[in-house]
C-alpha cells in the first residue's frame, strides 16, 4: 500500500514537473497523461487496500476520460498549429483575456 502510494506520488510529481517545465504542447499533454495515471495507480492501490472493486472501476473511468481528453487536446493543438506554426506554449501567449 505505502509503496504504491509513493509510486503514485512520484509519478504525479514527475508529471507536474513535466507540465511546468516542458514548452512543447505535445509533451505537456503527455505530462497530463502521466499525472492521470498517477491518480489511477493511487485509486487501484486504495481499492486493493480496502478490498473494494471501486478503485478499479474508478480507474476505468479515468482511462475513458484520459482517452477523450487526449482526443480533444490533440484536436485543439492541431487547430492551434494552423494559426501559429509553432508548438511552443510560451510563444502562444497572445490569448490573454
Amino acid at each position, binding site marked *: 500500500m505505502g509503496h504504491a502510494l509513493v509510486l503514485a506520488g512520484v509519478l504525479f510529481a514527475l508529471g*507536474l514537473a513535466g*507540465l*511546468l517545465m516542458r514548452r512543447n504542447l505535445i509533451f505537456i499533454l503527455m505530462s497530463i497523461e502521466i499525472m492521470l495515471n498517477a491518480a489511477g495507480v493511487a485509486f487501484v492501490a486504495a481499492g486493493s487496500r480496502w478490498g473494494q472493486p471501486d478503485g478499479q472501476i474508478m480507474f476505468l473511468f479515468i482511462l475513458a476520460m484520459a482517452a477523450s481528453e487526449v482526443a480533444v487536446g490533440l484536436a485543439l493543438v492541431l487547430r492551434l498549429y494552423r494559426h501559429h506554426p509553432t508548438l511552443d506554449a510560451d510563444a502562444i501567449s497572445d490569448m490573454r*483575456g
Partner: protein
Amino acid sequence: MPDLLWLIPAIPFASALALAVLPVPRKLVAWIAVAATAASAVVSLLVAIAFLSARPVANSYTQVLWTWFDVGGLHPQIAFYFDPLSLIMTVVVAFVSFLIHLYSTEFMIDDEGYSRFFAYMNLFVASMLTLLLADNLLLLYLGWEGVGLCSYLLIGFWYRDPANGRAGRKAFIVTRVGDTAMAIGLFLLFHNLGTLRIQDLMQRAPQHWQVGSSAAVAAALLLLGGAVGKSAQLPLQTWLPDAMAGPTPVSALIHAATMVTAGVYLIARMHVLYSLAPIAQSAVAVAGAATLLVAGFSALTQWDLKRILAYSTMSQIGYMFLALGVGAWPAAIFHFMTHAFFKALLFLAAGIVINAVHDEHNIFRMGGLRTRLPFAFWTFVIAGCSLAGLPLVTAGALSKDWIVWGAWSGGNGSPEFWTVALIGVLLTSLYTFRMIFVVFFGEAHSEVTKRPGLAMRIPCFVLALLSIVAGYVKMPFGRFLETVLPWSEGTHAIPITELASEGIAGSVFLIGVYLAYVFFLRKRSYAAALASSTAGNALHRFWFSDWGMDWLYDRLFVQPLVWFARVDKSDFIDGFYTGVAWLNEFAWGVLRRTENGRLRWYAAGIAGGSVVFIAVVLFL
C-alpha cells in the same frame, strides 16, 4: 365661457409637446405652432369679450381643474383666475406671441432646429399664460420657472457657439438668485397666512399684519427679489444684455414683450401686500428709478443694435417699476401693454435690418438703410417714436406721460422721482433717435441682400398700428383696471397739473430728438470729440460696460467662488476617497502582472494554489 379658460395655456402646451416628441415634417411645424398660438389668442379674446359683455359679480372668473397635491395643510389647486388685470396681460401676451410666431416662421426658415425652436417657443407661451392665469402663487411659480427654463433654452438656442451657452447660463443663474428669494417669500407667506391662494392672501394679509410690520416687509422684499431678477432690474440686471445672443424673435417675445414684465405682473398682483409694506414699495420705486437711469445711459454707448434695445427694455421696465412703486398701478400695466407692442416691433424691425445686412449687429456699419429698406424704416420709426414718446400721436407717449405724472402725483410720488422720469425721457429719445439716425440715415456701409416676406411684414404692420392706436384706450383702460388696482392720484397737492407734466415731457422729448439730430446726423464729429475727451472716454467706457456691474459681480461673487472651489477640491475628505481609488489602482497593477497569457504560468498557479489549499485543509 369661463369654462374655456384652461384652453388658453393648454393649447400651446399640447403643441409644444407634439413638436418636441413627434417627428413632425418641417412644413407642418410652422402651421402647428402658429395655429396653436392663434387658437390660444382667439380663446383668450373670446373669454375676454364674454367677461366684458357680462361682468361677473365677483369681477373675476375662477376655474378649478383639480387639486395639485394635498400635504400638511398645503393643497394648491390647478386653478385659473381671470380678472381685469390677468385679462389684459393674457390677451396682450397671447396676441403678441401669435404675431411673433408668425414672424418666426419666415425668420427661422433656414435654421436646422426649426421644430425645436417652435417647441421651445410654444412651451414658453404656455408657461407665460400659466403664470398670468395662476390662481395661487405655487402655480404662478411653476409658470415663472417654466418661462425661465424656456428663456435659458432659447438664449442658448444656437448652442454650437459656447458664448451663447454662457449667456444662457448667466441668465439662468442670475434669475435663479431672484427666484430663490421669491421661493423663501412664498414659504414666509404660507407660514404666516396659511395659504398660497392669491385672493385669500390679499384678504388675510391686512387682517394679520399691521401696516409696516416686519413680516409683511420681509415677504414683500423677498417677492421683489424675484421680480427684479426676472425683470432685469438693479441689482440683478446684468443678464439681459447677454440674453440677446438668442434669435431675434426670442428677444422680441421673451426678453422684451412678455417674460421680463412678469416681475411687474407679480408686484401688481400682490399690490395689497406692498401697500402693507411702504418700505418695500419705496424699494420698488427706487429700483425702477435707478434702473431707468443706469440702463438709459448704457444704451447711449452701445454699438450693437440688439444690445441698445436690451438696455432700452431694462429702462422701460424701470418705468413700470417706478409706477408700481409710487402707487400708479394702472399706469404700470398700461405701459406694459404699449411697451409690449412697440418694443416687440422694434425687435422685429431690427431683425429685418440685421437679416438684410448679413447678420451685422454694429449700427455704425449699417447706415443709409432708409431708402433700401423702407418697410423696416417706417415700422422702426413708428416704434421708436412710441418708445421715445412722441406726444399726442403715439401710445408710448400716453403711457409714459402717465407714469411721469404719477411719479409726482402718486401716493409715494416725489419731485425727485418726477425729475428722474424726465431725465429718462430725455435719454430714451436720445438713444432711440441715435439708433434711427445712425442706422437709417447717412452713408451706406453695407449691402442689402434680403428683403422681408409677407409673414414678416404682417406682424410688423399690425404691431405698428397697435403702437399708435393702443394709447387711445387710456381712459377706459384706467377705469377698467381701477376695479382691481388702486390708483391713488392726488393724495397730496402738487404744484403742476397733469397737462403741464405732459407738456414738459413732450418738450424734453423734442430736446432729445434735437440733440440726437445734432450729434448723430448733422455733426457726427461733435459726438466723436465728446467721446474722445478724457472724461468723455472714461464715462463712455464705464457706461458701455454696464456701469462695471459685470466686472464687480465677477470680482465679488464669481472669482471667490471659483477660488474656493479650487481650494476645496483638494481637502482631506477627498484625500480618503482618492486613497481608496489609489489603493485599488495599485492592487490592479500588481494582479495584472499574473495575467500574462502563459499557459505554464497558469498551470503553476493552479498547482501552487491546490498545494496551499490542501495544506490548509490538512493542517488547520
